């Protein structure tokens, strides 16, 4: 493998890892704070991708405006969904949460099939991000992928700033480490839940929208992302944003380089990584001992 190829694969790994981080951070926060295991989280990624497919003809060149509009819609959707559905799951045990969110996936997938059909659709790359730039003598790298990584980095930094530097973030961190104490201190936990959930949905949908021009949109795209995000959360440790970031990048590298070196069995690479972590640190890289 020459240096140019290596560099391209590294960029791909980082880009994939960062995208996973957007989805997994919401998943880990929702579990860490509300104690809900949400199988439907992958559906929000799928919904985001289909939103990009539906909205891109309307917005044309205005890709960033489309992303902003999509994020607002997803956040509102998440807010309503928390109020109408998820707020009833907090008192239930994990088994019931698994089954009810599983039912929700079936509903989302079928609605998707009714509204858009089961075909694979491409989503155009915005014209100002089309094309690629040269990397070394032979390789080139698409501008859009670089944009996707940059957007994810900006979002990750923003998330870090909100969680570590604001009052809301303080409540989120407190909620993730001790839910009952936060409730006891008189913080409006229901409002906090609703905000965190809406933010998680918005992040997952944004990841879907950013991914859509690269991956196209197809049925069951949510499920594969969901399972990989579970792997990320297990490796990183539940409730830890930093853990999710480290784990996402690890998974990104293992998956991308697995495809290069062991194409046929690349699908199992990340699961072997998870097995190693389970042997070494069952609570996850950044998780607390239980």
């Amino acid at each position, binding site marked *: 493998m020459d240096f140019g190829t290596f560099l391209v694969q590294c960029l791909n790994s980082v880009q994939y890892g960062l995208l996973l981080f957007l989805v997994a951070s919401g998943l880990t926060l929702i*579990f860490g704070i509300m104690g809900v*295991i949400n*199988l439907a989280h992958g559906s929000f990624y799928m919904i985001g991708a289909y939103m990009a497919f539906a909205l891109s003809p309307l917005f044309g060149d205005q890709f960033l405006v489309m992303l902003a509009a999509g994020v607002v819609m997803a956040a509102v959707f998440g807010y309503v969904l928390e109020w109408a559905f998820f707020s*009833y799951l907090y008192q*239930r*045990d*994990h*088994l*019931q949460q*698994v*089954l*009810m969110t*599983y*039912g*929700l*996936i*079936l*509903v989302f*997938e*079928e*609605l998707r*099939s*009714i509204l858009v059909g089961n075909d694979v659709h491409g989503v155009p790359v915005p014209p100002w991000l089309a094309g690629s730039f040269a990397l070394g003598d032979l390789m080139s790298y698409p501008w859009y992928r670089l944009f996707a990584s940059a957007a994810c980095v900006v979002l990750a930094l923003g998330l870090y700033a909100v969680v570590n530097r604001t009052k809301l973030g303080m409540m989120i961190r407190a909620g993730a480490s001790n839910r009952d104490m936060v409730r006891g201190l008189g913080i409006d936990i229901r409002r906090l839940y609703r905000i965190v959930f809406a933010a998680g949905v918005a992040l997952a949908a944004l990841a879907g929208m950013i991914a859509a021009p690269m991956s196209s949109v197809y049925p069951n795209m949510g*499920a594969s992302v969901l*399972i990989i995000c*579970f*792997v990320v*959360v*297990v490796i990183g440790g*539940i409730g830890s944003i930093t853990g999710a970031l480290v784990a996402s990048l690890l998974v990104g590298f293992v998956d991308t380089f697995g495809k290069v070196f062991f194409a*046929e*069995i*690349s*699908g*199992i690479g990340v*699961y*072997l990584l*998870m*097995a190693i972590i*389970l*042997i070494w640190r*069952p*609570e996850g890289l950044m998780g607390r001992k*239980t």
Partner: protein
Amino acid sequence: MTTTPSSAARPGLAGPALIPALVAIALALAGPTLGPYGADLMVKMMILSIFALSLQLLVGMTGLVSLGHAAFYGIGAYVTVLASGSEGGNLLVLGLLSMAGAAGYALVVGALSLRTRGVYFIMVTLAFAQMAYFVFHDTPVGGGSDGIYLYVRPAAGALDMENRTVMFYVVLAALAATYALLALIGRSRFGAALAGIRVNEQRMRAAGFPVYGYKLAAFVLAGALAGLAGCLVASRDGVVNPELLGWHNSGEVLLMIILGGLGHLRGAVIGAVAFTLLKEVLSTHAMVGPLANHWQLTLGIAIIVFVALLPRGLIGLAARISPRNTP
């Protein structure tokens, strides 16, 4: 899961052995009167009952929620087809091989995933099942995403699975044996220890029980029984594909045991039957009209409503209607 101490101590004792035995005898007598469609549906429901029973050992009896149980079912099915060759294999040998294959993977998965608990356990079992899925989906061992066909159905002397009547009785016998085995386990010291782990793991550990070993034993046994169900489903369908290991299958079997009633053996059987019928109804045009094309939507809503309203399953509903029958 709220359970009274008496039922918690002996989960396998949900009702006398008389009723399951009578149901088995009635099924055996009714077998010849069922038409081809009825017999086929019945075989399907009985195989799924074995599958659901195997998960009941984990979820209902031990309190381990696994979202990857379809992996063992699928591995059992693949082992049966791969070991059959073009000549067809011996039913008993294939059954044992399938169980051994599934138990082997369950040993690895269980040893790793039992290092975690609660929601981690759910995620890890799902992830390892997906790994097995990819092995059959991406590599040539299992014919890739199209799966592979069984040339000749397994047989053992007169027990030839090519014969539909024989298949009916073989599956019925396997179901009865599985049910009886789990009922015995429920009454045994081992079963009591599993129930203790479900109710209060800390206390069992403090009492000196090797909790990890007990849980791993339950996990491996559950995997082996799922492998048996897989062997039977491969013999019935004559074809296997990676979707057998898919996570929808794991979700559905979990749904079956909560639909019937968690912690009761008959709950697994009732749930498997009810779920199969529900799916059949929701996807039949004559029953629900044009909604049949969108059975996933109605099934999804049905799941949500059902779990929301009846967390204790159909058995819980029966108990609510006539409290005298409370187990």
